[in-house]
């Protein structure tokens, strides 16, 4: 079973970082990763009927244009598990994203051990 993962972050280097951090899982075919650098692009990919649906979404909060909070608010939380990755790791922010239905919170710098657990969980 392959988990389809969507990573949303305006930092373009997140893609090579995630591909390296999760390279074993990728090689093992446990996951597939797609990347979006903005909320609008992410929403378009999520609602794309031709592609297979995502199982996991990991989103940044602070992004130009729409923020991760908007993404959280907009998407169907039952369709996939959603996690947040942010440099803002204070209690208020954690509480807010939890309330919006996020299953996990990864504070930057990201601990890929936690990420691996999240993306590989079924």
């Amino acid at each position: 079973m392959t988990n389809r993962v969507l990573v949303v972050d305006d930092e373009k280097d997140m893609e090579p970082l995630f591909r390296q951090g999760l390279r074993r899982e990728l090689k093992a075919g446990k996951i597939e990763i797609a990347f979006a650098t903005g909320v609008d692009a992410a929403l378009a990919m999520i609602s794309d009927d031709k592609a297979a649906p995502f199982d996991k979404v990991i989103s940044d909060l602070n992004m130009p244009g729409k923020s991760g909070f908007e993404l959280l608010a907009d998407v169907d939380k039952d369709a996939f598990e959603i996690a947040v990755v942010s440099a803002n790791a204070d209690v208020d922010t954690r509480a807010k994203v939890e309330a919006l239905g996020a299953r996990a919170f990864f504070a930057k710098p990201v601990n890929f051990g936690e990420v691996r657990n999240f993306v590989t969980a079924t």
Partner: protein
Amino acid sequence: MWSRLSLRFKFLSLVIPLAIFISLVFFLFIDNQLKKDAQGTLADRIEELTRVQSGSISGPLWSFNILQLNLVTSSMINDPDVVGVSVLDETGAVVAADGVQEANLEDRIFMRQRTVSFFDDGTKRDIGELRVFYSEERLLADAVTRRLTALVAIALLIGALIIGALVGLHYTVLVPLGRFATAIGLARDTDQVVPVDWNTQDEMGNVAHAFNDLQSQQKSDEAELRRIQDNLEDLVEKRTETLAQREVQLVGARDKAEHALEELRATQSRLIQSQKMASLGQLSAGIAHEIKNPLNFVNNFSLMSVEMLGELKEALAAHNAAPTNETKEEIAELTQLLSDNLEKIEHHGHRADNIVRNMLLHSRDGPADFRQAQINNVLREAVNLAFHSARAEVAGFNITIHEELDSDLPETFCVPQDLSRVFINLASNAMYATHQKTKKELPGYEPLLEIHTAAEKNRIRIDVRDNGEGIPQSVREQVFEPFFTSKPTGEGTGLGLSLAYDIVHETHRGDIRLESEEGEGTTFTVFIPLVSENPDNKGDKK
């Protein structure tokens, strides 16, 4: 010359010639009259004599009694005025003669003639003529004597008149004038009225009276004037005293004001420092966030590189044992990844360094140095910092930042950390304004910040435009004033734009303007002069 002569002399020099002239005219007139009278009397007397004697010679001439005729003529010539007598017969021949016979006007000798008649039997018959010559010599001699006498009399009279006139002049004019002079001399040196002692009822008396009136009027005026002057002096003295007191008060007030100003300056500099600290505090959250992004990459890429180095070792060992294309490709891939990772680590490490340096620049106090800088970079970093600061402060804050930066913008000498402060401030305000508008939950509203740079002729133009709440017309004039803030108490120091204004105007000799439409947004435009030489080296170090 004339005006210097004494009154007496003037009087005499006018009176004497005039008196002599008038006297002489009268004298000549009277003398002439007298002469005419004397001549008339003489002529009458000679006429009478001729008439009488012509009667008395009538007989002798009829009878030609020559002796008798001679007797008559010699008796006639005895008259003092008669100088000649002649008797002519009826034919005109001289019968008897004595003395001068010819009338000579030059010698003032005149002639009287009379026909001699004789009554013969009752018939009147002209028988001859009597001629009498007479002279006015005696009359003229009398006239000379009379004239001399008259002249002497006139001279005496004139002398007497002059003496009289001088005496009159003395008593009627000179004495009162002397009194005037005395009185005026005395009056000049005293406050008292010194009347002219002259009480006649004539013109001089009137003048004295008028003068006395005038003097007493003048004295009372002077007294009044002196009184006013004294009052004035009193007043001036009092005013001077009051002014001196005022001056003391003013100096006191000025000292107080100066002291207050000093305190104000101290407070202001403390406030400016606290504004810097406040904005630094605001920024630090944003900076912390901002720094975690590069840190994430540095940490994780290095961590993964360590793992990959392990894999590389294994791959190398495998390749050394049995080199295949597969192992070769794996090694190549791993080294490429490692190389990329190191580049990324370097890149993000540098990024973090920049952020920290910006923060330090922002917090640094005191004069900053001019250096050549690319304003695009300063602006971009500042806006980024402001953005993250806003996001750190307000959970869920977001804004679209639209950059339109002139890629050909020349570098200019400026104080980058100061300009960074300006831009952070403008961007923070813009974000605050859009956030306030977001709170109103207007449909379709998306916060937008546009930053724009352009090179103009001698300057660089920077626009920071937001679509926030806008600034009300009523406070647009005040936004650059120190301590003016529209934010709720505790949120703003009111120094941000004031500092920005100082930095742009004072440090950079530039300009900052603002355009705003309430409810639509605000544009701040900053002009920074293009400077190709370091102003710090020109000796006017700020």
